[in-house]
């Protein structure tokens, strides 16, 4: 190992790193938490908690992910090269291992987990679920998805190029939260609703679920009938569509959809309130899991989700009919998280480590106090 690398490793294992990283991390957590009140949970998560770099004007600051990654690295290096094994240190060592597993679990979750929702009325069924936040632009040909473009790749004046697209597609404008306004000016070759209205960006709502994304795009080399300027806006019932050489193309802007390897059907739902009050006592729904030949009734209640094929399905909300107050549909949160087990393993490891350390230290502490008194 080169001496530079050795130096780096030993520097990473030094406690002074943690001594300075922790206060910074705490400040970021405080700022991110207070920010939630003003910019909402989603945006504050995006900016503070899930970012590697936080831009304060032109100054780049490390985000919480970067700090966590650094702490993780430091911990790993310390455990490998700078943790002598003594019985007295065993508890601490195991506890640190638990923390390491926790951070690793966080990393796996951040990288691999998929979260979304599905809303079902009685007897409705579904084999897909929708992301809460991610917007995508889907170009489909003859009802098959041809191209799915994530929102991060959608920018003003950007051309979308792909060998799968036989025409030119350019994004004129995009807004993450838009409203409609009457079109001004005399822009030629407008198609569909674009003839009458244009999209205007507005301030993001605190609840990201209320934000409505929209784009204005120009289609060219798609034939005289299809070429023009279009609008794709989330709440629009009719999204842009056109024909090109006999093939039917649809442009849809909406939330990303994920496929479930099984079908879920809602059979019953029941919300119980405490007698004589509106306070909910329990939420219970009965679903049918259909997977090929398998058809099984499963009861889902608060604190008891359904787990199947790596997916976990929770009751997220019971939506009642305003007039009858009867439950109209149930929204389920659906999560696929390969890192789900890490916190369980980490907590067991951490508990064992801390308990061992306490048991080893306690007689000494007591003895010292006895001597002192």
């Amino acid at each position, binding site marked *: 190992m080169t001496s530079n690398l050795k130096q780096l490793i030993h520097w990473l294992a030094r406690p002074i790193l943690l001594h300075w990283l922790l206060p910074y991390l705490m400040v970021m957590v405080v700022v991110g938490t207070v920010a939630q009140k003003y910019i909402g949970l989603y945006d504050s998560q995006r900016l503070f908690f899930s970012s590697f770099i936080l831009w304060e004007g032109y100054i780049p600051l490390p985000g919480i992910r970067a700090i966590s990654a650094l702490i993780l690295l430091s911990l790993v290096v310390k455990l490998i090269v700078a943790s002598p094994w003594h019985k007295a240190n065993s508890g601490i060592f195991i506890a640190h291992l638990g923390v390491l597993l926790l951070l690793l679990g966080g990393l796996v979750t951040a990288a691999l987990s998929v*979260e979304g929702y599905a809303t079902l009325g009685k007897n409705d069924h579904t084999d897909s679920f929708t992301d809460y936040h991610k917007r995508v632009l889907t170009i489909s040909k003859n009802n098959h998805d041809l191209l799915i473009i994530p929102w991060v790749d959608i920018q003003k004046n950007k051309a979308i190029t792909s060998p799968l697209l036989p025409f030119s597609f350019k994004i004129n404008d995009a807004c993450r939260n838009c409203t409609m306004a009457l079109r001004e000016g005399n822009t030629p070759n407008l198609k569909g609703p674009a003839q009458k209205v244009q999209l205007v960006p507005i301030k993001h709502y605190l609840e990201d679920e209320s934000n409505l994304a929209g784009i204005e795009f120009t289609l060219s080399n798609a034939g005289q009938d299809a070429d023009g300027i279009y609008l794709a806006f989330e709440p629009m019932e009719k999204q842009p569509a056109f024909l090109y050489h006999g093939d039917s193309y649809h442009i849809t802007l909406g939330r990303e959809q994920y496929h479930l390897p099984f079908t879920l059907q809602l059979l019953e739902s029941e919300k119980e309130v405490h007698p004589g009050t509106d306070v909910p006592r329990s939420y219970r729904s009965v679903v049918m899991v259909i997977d090929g030949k398998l058809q099984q009734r499963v009861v889902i209640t608060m604190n008891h989700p359904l787990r199947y094929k790596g997916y976990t399905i929770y009751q997220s909300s019971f939506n009642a009919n305003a007039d009858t107050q009867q439950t109209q549909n149930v929204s389920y949160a659906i999560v696929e998280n390969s890192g*789900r087990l890490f916190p369980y393993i980490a907590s067991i490891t951490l508990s064992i480590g801390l308990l061992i350390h306490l048991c080893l230290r306690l007689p000494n502490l007591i003895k010292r106090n006895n001597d002192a008194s």
Partner: protein
Amino acid sequence: MRVSLAIILWLLMSCNAYADSLNYDAFSKIPIQHEGRIKPLATFALVESQRFHGSAEVDHTTATAWLASVMFDPGNAMEKPLFLVKDTDAQSMLNLPAKPDNLYSFAEVTQAIFGNKTLIEPLLEKRPDELSPGQKAVVQLYNDSGAFAQIALSCTLFLPLSIDLPGKPPSPLSTFTDYYHDLPALQESMKSIITHKGTNPDNYSTDELRLSKALETLTMTMESSQNNNLLRVIPPQWSQDDNWLSPWAMFYGGQGSPKTAKLTSLWKQLAAAYRLHDNSQWMQASSQLLHETSTTPGVRPAALSLEVMYYHWSLLDKSMLLYVTGFILILFCMSGLAVRPVRIAALLSVGTGALLHIITILSRIFILERPPVSTLYESLLFVSLIAVSFGLLLEWRLRNNLGLLVATVAGSVLLFASQSFSGEDTMNMLIAVLNTNFWLATHVLCITTGYGFGMVAGIIAHVYLIMRCLNRPADKTRQVLRGGYGTALIALLFTSLGTILGGIWADQSWGRFWGWDPKENGALLICLWLIWILHSRITGHFKERGFAAGLSLLNVVISLSWLGVNLLSTGLHSYGFTDKAAWGLGAFCGAEFLFVAITYIVIWRRDDAKT
């Protein structure tokens, strides 16, 4: 207005005002289902009197006695000053006359509300955050008067009714049910009278007038009792659910049974005894009523008795007083005045306070059948008990008054803080996500225990800083700080475990282990703070004074995480929100910062001067 008219009718049969000579022991324990749980009438009375009157006593009588007067003598009760309306805007909006005590009777309030219907109706449609404080007070008064009317009319099913029918002279024992089946015939007769003689009563004969008045009384009684369902004292007889019924709901729902016939008869006897001021009949009826309802599934007579005693004795107030007394005595001790007797007195004071505190919490566990940490108020009680208990343990080990100091400070401060939430505490039922004893027992107990130990560690650090400022010997101060260090380790154990258990609970309920929710971030901050100061102490980056300063500020971190995050009113932990105590919290944090800054600077300069 119809409601108040109905009640005015009861004035005809209302009994004379009298000094309260009835024994309310058994009556206070009669079970009622309210806010989702079975509780004694005494608690219901307390809740409602607090709601209307802002205090547990009404007109120098206990809340229970007041409740009985409203139930059995509604005519008089509606004339007595009851509703506390302090907001002057509300008073002027409703044209209520200014009064020195700001107390208004139901009659005055209903008249004001009826006279300002056009003003009030639009306010009822608005959300609370769209209303000014005066408008909120008006809406509150409107709702409160509705609740009072519910209570006042709840027993009219078995109160004597003054009905004078041709061929059926009035009887002091007749109640509504004696005339209920006459209604169809009376209505038919009245139709015929109107057909022949019109609607002007001047044209009616004496008998026809009697019939008309009787019908009006019966109709008004029926109309005003249609949705009367607040006083749920009748256990379910036939239904599959566990909803108790009010007497009128039982009547209209056809839920009567041989058992309810017995109960109704006892309620009738109770009402009669009240109106005749017959204490022996009153006691007999109330004891029998209590006995009959105590055998209902779901009713725990021991819990009812305990709950009555719990609110009657208010042990927590006494406990807080004992902690404060102990604190004063310890201060005397530490300043060297009459050490031994004063120390014993302090020990007794704190010990007794702790005993009362434990009894309170155990009572709550027994009454509610769940761990005592499901609301902010309960967590304050529990954390203070942990801190006091650990302080006493510390005192047993060290015998140097430090433990007593910690116990009294923690006990007094936290119980004092809990007073701001005690008014809202009616031992409520839990919402669905909290309705799980396992996670309440593990996660919440763990976290609150961690808070307790953390506060103790913080107080010990304060003591260290003060001792250093007062130039106490180094070995003594070092010993104190070692105590703080050990306590901080225990705090870290509990808070980190509690935080992780919280994450696991969130994974089970909401589908994600960690969501950067404010409450979660608060718990994480406590762990990070502890890890930071402990690590820095071990590695030598913090000297003693730095570690002590950091440990002192742990109290600020805990307060902000525990109470402060609720002020943000955002996130999934939406069941602890309150905008109270914001100023108190701010003042506390400010004072702590100032204290730590000043003591640290003093110690730093002294250390520098030494070197």
